[in-house]
């Protein structure tokens, strides 16, 4: 049933990036995916990503981000 990585596909993730530069769990959404291992790999990549938080007036703030991740075999 699980889909292996035979060809490249894009997975689109949306999440709130917190003031600490980490994706917040509530609201994490898979907006586009063919499913299977593509989703799993994209989530693993996102977990390893490091972000600088957005800022206004020098203070870090929460922002909503849509992040496309191209998963290749």
């Amino acid at each position: 049933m699980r889909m292996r990585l035979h060809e490249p596909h894009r997975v689109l993730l949306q999440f709130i990036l917190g003031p600490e530069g980490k994706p917040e769990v509530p609201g994490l959404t898979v907006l586009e995916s063919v499913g299977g291992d593509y989703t799993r790999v994209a989530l693993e990549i996102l977990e390893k990503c490091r972000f600088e938080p957005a800022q206004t007036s020098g203070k870090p703030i929460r922002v909503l981000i849509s992040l496309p991740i191209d998963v290749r075999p």
Partner: protein
Amino acid sequence: MRSRAILLLVLTPGPGWAQESRDPDSAMVARLSAQMTYHFSVLAAAEWRRYGTHLDFVPLTPRLPDELPELAHDGFATVFLEASDSGWSAVVLHDSLPGTACGTYVGNVAVANRPSTAPGEIACTGDKGRLVHPGPVSLQVMHILFASDPTLDAPPKIVGCPEVDLPKDLRQPLRHVRMISLIDPNGTVSPAPVRVLDAPSFRYAAAAIVVLEQCRWRPGYRDRLAVRTAVRLPDVLGRDILVGDSLP
């Protein structure tokens, strides 16, 4: 005789004429009712389009002119009272009838934010609210039903999930992940959208998404036809999905 007959005609006008004379704005009100109908149908379409891709409804007010130019017809203002991952409610005002508002709600909305008595019904209030009759309009336009929809013959039900090989550090029972997903009419979980409402950590959330997608479901049915339903997990399971535990 002829002049008396004419006088009689003038003095006994029909009921339609009487209505016109008491309410000179009725033509405008009828036009406004039609515009309201259109306004709500576009609004519902926009919200369901959003739900079909994001699994939440959004108070669109701040971005209306950019995102929905068709809703920005002259004199109309849309005010959202509530919008979440399980419902929305809004009232619509028009410059020509100050103090009159028409509103509705869809899905799960706090009682205080329900402009109408039933979901999907458009109710108008205010001085001339009794004259404005929008609709009928279908506010369910995306063929997605909530699993809790009372019109379903049977809600979707999980049939089984394969064994999942989870990392060791996630193999702990009683870790709850709450999320929303779409169950297609063929009983599979739609790979997207999937929305996490809450989880102990990012890794649990990611694992739950992968687990859920491999589960098989009996789809929801309405009028004996399998339909696409939005399920909120674990609410509709009757039990919890336990990430780290083997699933049935």
